[in-house]
């Protein structure tokens, strides 16, 4: 049996078709989930989620700001539920709009955050696969995700769909608010749907490179993921997949902070370093400096980019990812190599995903670790 075969990589190979299918499912839903009045009412947006959903929020924050022109924050669920300033919630007629993402809809902290912001008058749009979940029942509106079942693995398909749902919302907000004509909005959408085709073309080369990296890196004790802006979300997601799939230590940091912190790490020769470096990123010059000094430190290096080796002029393994017409669509596919590498390392070392929820990890079976938690609705007075 091929020692590389694993469900996580199978999920990656299902993405080209999934992207097209999910676009066809979600695009009409996004058109009707909020009315013109509701979209025009939005003055600020909070994107919130846990785990992969939090990464999806980070991946799309700038799309909301660039396309819709609406100030957008990414706030983790516990920050929103326990710390976020009450005086900033429910102001100016149900603002900010809180977009809460949870596929199961039963994550305790999201449940708590949504209860709190609803209590103080925010409008809540739930993005979930479960209308009858706590999130579904507590939201003012629901964008229902319908992701076909697949062999279980650390979130790969669900992440792609969450990113797409949020991107479609950003495009819709900008379209309705007349930031650009409908034809332009459709061009953003067509480009989004086309990412499945672009990914399909690049997957064979991506897979070959990822297998080689996994073989060479499988015994490393730690991995370091670096990216900025859009790319930071992919870096964050990458460290999450390593932890989930392999149980090994992994770090995530942006290109600037790397020079303040992560470059200090010792044993550089055994520190697998993955840099997300898209050629359209405003942070590209700093990313190139990371590559320069990571090379000097002797770190094994992978650069995930829509460009080529020529764009960087440094020695590293370059894994090419799709180059969309519009950079906002990058997060839809640029995470795929990190899933392949994590999945292959997991298969090669024989590590169960999530440690199989066995032994000391049994408490996390069926998501119990994130679903079963005391719900506390905080008011500002409590915090002060």
């Amino acid at each position, binding site marked *: 049996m091929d020692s590389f075969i694993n469900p996580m990589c199978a999920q990656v190979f299902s993405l080209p078709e999934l992207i097209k299918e999910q676009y066809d499912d979600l695009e009409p839903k996004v*058109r*009707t989930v909020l*009315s*013109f*009045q509701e*979209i*025009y009412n939005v003055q600020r947006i909070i994107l919130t989620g846990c785990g992969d959903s939090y990464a999806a929020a980070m991946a799309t924050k700038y799309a909301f700001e660039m396309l819709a022109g609406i100030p957008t924050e990414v706030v983790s669920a516990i920050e929103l539920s326990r710390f976020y300033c009450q005086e900033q919630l429910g102001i100016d007629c149900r603002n900010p709009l809180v977009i809460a993402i949870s596929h199961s809809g039963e994550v305790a902290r999201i449940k708590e955050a949504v209860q709190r912001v609803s209590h103080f008058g925010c409008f809540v749009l739930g993005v979930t696969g479960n209308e009858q979940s706590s999130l579904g029942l507590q939201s003012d509106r629901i964008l229902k995700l319908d992701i076909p079942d697949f062999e279980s693995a650390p979130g790969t398909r669900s992440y792609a769909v969450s990113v797409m749902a949020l991107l479609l919302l950003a495009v819709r907000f900008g*379209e*309705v608010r*007349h930031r650009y*004509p*409908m*034809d332009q909005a459709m061009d953003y959408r067509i480009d989004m749907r086309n990412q499945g085709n672009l990914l399909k073309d690049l997957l064979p080369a991506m897979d070959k490179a990822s297998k080689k990296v996994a073989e060479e890196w499988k015994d490393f004790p730690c991995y370091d993921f670096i990216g900025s802006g859009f790319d930071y979300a992919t870096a964050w997601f990458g460290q999450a997949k390593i932890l989930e799939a392999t149980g090994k230590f992994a770090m995530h940091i942006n290109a600037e902070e790397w020079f303040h912190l992560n470059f200090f790490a010792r044993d550089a020769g055994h520190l697998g370093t993955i840099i997300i470096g898209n050629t359209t990123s405003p942070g590209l010059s700093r990313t190139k400096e990371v590559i320069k000094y990571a090379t000097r430190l002797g770190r094994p290096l992978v650069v995930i980019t829509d460009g080529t080796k020529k764009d960087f002029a440094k020695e590293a393994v370059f894994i090419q990812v799709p180059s969309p017409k519009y950079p906002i669509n990058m997060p839809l596919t640029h995470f795929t190599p990190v899933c392949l590498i994590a999945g292959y390392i997991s298969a090669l070392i024989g590590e169960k995903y999530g440690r199989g929820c066995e032994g000391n990890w049994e408490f996390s079976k069926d998501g119990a670790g994130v679903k079963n938690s005391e719900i506390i609705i905080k008011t500002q007075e409590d915090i002060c």
Partner: protein
Amino acid sequence: MLINYKIKTKYNDVFDITDKVKKAVCESGVKEGICLVYNPHSTAGLAVYSPWDPKGFKDLDEEIRRLIPTRIDFKHQHDTPQDAAGHVKSAILGISGNFIIHEGELLIGGSQAIYFLEFDGPRNREFYVKVQAD
């Protein structure tokens, strides 16, 4: 004879198509007959208006928008408020015009020109000119 013209409009454009229609009539060789100008869109209109004062186009645009403002409470919510208003404008103002051909030329007055009215835009648009002899 039927001719299709492609045009690229700007936002809320008042696009002069008079010369194109005149040329179509000329090329048809029809001396006496009817010319139908037809716009196949639902968020654009067709109108005859005076070309002499450019500020008049602004009056036209402003009056149309005053009569049918872009609002966010339209029942049609599939596309955008601009689109919903555009459908109403198009329906009220009409999307075609009939003209007389006499002695091989389009019979229009000296203060008349034919305009494609864009109620959205910028868009890639088209219109048709049908020339029919008596």
